[in-house]
């Protein structure tokens, strides 16, 4: 775990450097069009944005080490609370998306592997590939158009916190976004599950299982699927990264107050502390997910030992 720290530090420095190289002054954005450059420069100085970059980075790093991610220039609020609120949306979105991916992707992949070559397989494999070829924002726009505006079944956009009025029922706001986000990734999992199942089904131990006279369903589930899961688990880390990527677009389309949209807007208004904070959180999250994947891997495959 400690070996991940250098990666984290390198990533944060890279981002710090990049975003500060981007032209644009958060002070000018804050003050608005009518403000003069002089006024903006004065505010910039007040915010400490005229200090040398390395000094700013050192300061930031020092604060981070103490658990303080700084204050948003734009919101005048602690970055941690800004991200914290966005994280609720994004994590719930990710969890719901993962739910669809697993609930649809895995069974469909299993069925199309078992019925390899059948029309079910053809349709699900082809359909999976088609869904993976659709730009997320395009899909999202049409889902809103059909299911929210046209049919009025689901809310179109936004997401009131589940601690807000409505409680867990507010999750319905995330239904369309999570489906949008799940579509291409479920496709990925379907193909992966199918391919791994087929690979595993050629293994000698599957033949052994069949030779025991086991029912084909038992062979498929206990011997083929269980081992295919090992390869699938490894893909979840990858899927998570893809998910965060696509969440940026999905949250923008559905106007969700998540960290994906937050980071896009923060880049546009050059809210450096927020961008750095989000990147830090996302990278940590990514590493955490990968760690979880490794743990899952170890628990799925007794040949992998953690020590």
């Amino acid at each position, binding site marked *: 775990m400690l070996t991940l720290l250098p990666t984290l530090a390198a990533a944060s420095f890279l981002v710090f450097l990049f975003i500060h190289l981007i032209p644009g002054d958060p002070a000018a954005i804050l003050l608005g069009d009518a403000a003069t450059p002089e006024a903006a420069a004065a505010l910039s100085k007040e915010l400490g944005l005229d200090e040398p970059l390395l000094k700013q980075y050192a300061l930031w790093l020092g604060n981070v080490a103490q658990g303080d991610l700084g204050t948003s220039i734009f919101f005048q609020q602690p970055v941690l609370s800004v991200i914290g609120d966005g994280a609720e949306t994004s994590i719930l979105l990710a969890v719901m998306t993962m739910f669809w991916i697993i609930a649809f992707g895995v069974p469909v992949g299993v069925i199309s592997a078992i019925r390899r070559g059948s029309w079910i397989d053809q349709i699900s494999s082809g359909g999976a590939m088609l869904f993976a070829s659709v730009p997320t924002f395009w899909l999202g726009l049409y889902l809103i158009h059909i299911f929210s505006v046209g049919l009025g079944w689901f809310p179109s956009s936004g997401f009131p916190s589940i601690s807000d009025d409505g409680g867990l029922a507010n999750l319905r706001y995330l239904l369309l976004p999570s489906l949008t986000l799940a579509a291409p990734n479920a496709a990925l999992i379907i193909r992966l599950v199918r391919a791994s199942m087929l690979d595993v089904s050629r293994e000698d131990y599957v033949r*052994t299982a069949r030779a*025991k006279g086991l029912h084909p369903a038992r062979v498929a589930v206990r011997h083929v699927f269980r*081992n295919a899961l090992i390869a699938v688990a490894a893909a979840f880390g990858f899927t998570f990264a893809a998910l965060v990527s696509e969440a940026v677009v999905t949250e923008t389309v559905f106007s969700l107050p998540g960290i994906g949209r937050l980071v896009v807007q923060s880049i546009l208004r050059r809210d450096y502390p927020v961008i750095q904070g989000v990147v830090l959180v996302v990278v940590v999250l990514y590493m955490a997910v990968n760690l979880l994947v490794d743990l899952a891997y170890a628990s799925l495959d007794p040949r992998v030992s953690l020590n």
Partner: protein
Amino acid sequence: MPLLDVSELEISVHSTGGDIAVVKGVSFQVNKSGTIGIVGESGCGKSLTSLAIMGLLDGSQARTTGGTVRFEGTELLGLTMRERRKIMGNQMSMIFQEPMTSLNPVYRVGDQIAEALRQHRSLTRKAARERAIELLRMVRIPRPDERIDCFPHQLSGGQRQRVMVAIAIACEPKLLIADEPTTALDVTVQKEILGLLRDLQEQTGMAVVLISHDLGVVAETCDFVAIMYRGKIVETGRAEDVFSSVAHPYTRGLLNSIPPVDRDVEVLNEIPGRVPSIEQNVPGCSFHSRCTIAAGICREIDPEFSTVSGKHEVRCHFALGSNNRAE
């Protein structure tokens, strides 16, 4: 009535040019507590034959296209999969070549043994475990009560093959098919496994079909042998008859090409050329292109079986005496 009666078995594989029969007219019988060795080089169809008997041929690549397989008088090829599964792993079981990959790496060996037991015997979990320990003891794995909770990767190759044997004999089968059971093992381990099989056979009276490329293994283990070449049995008989008076030039060539460990040889005999590929249609005797005694007739007519003595039969135009040879 023989325990297993294979008659005129034909197996075809699917290829772009249509189905090709890779096993043709294979017939043999195994009696209760008998041991037959099926010997041949890679690609001769011996493994396909064993898979066909067991019912493990995956229809997408190879399937039986003719002949009968009777087990205790029941025709197996006509059974539904459901009926077949009642026999598989129960009255008839199988062990395979690669002990490294034939056990599922994610389950403990005890569970894998118990799985076979619980499939065919209604045992409680506890009873199955006890039986599994007993089976591990039977296959001579030390400290079976500990090893039962090992994962396959924690065992050596020889021990894994013992576990495979334990799985195979779990339901006290009447027939055990062993497909190259010792090929991947060292000679010392091979000796132990073969000895184990022999002892188990004595204890339980099960019949064994041993598939091997190694004539030595078959000669030491089996009382009956069948030599296969390009999908056909070319020579068959009691082991002592076949090895003491080899009748088919292929069998002879094969025996002569193995460098013996107990004497020095100056020049090893070779069988010239190589096995024609299965796509190639060879008229006449399929061995004629490599045969040193082949004559015109061999290129045109595929020889039928002729009896050498007793049950010793051979498919060769010139097998029945040197005076027939075209030397």
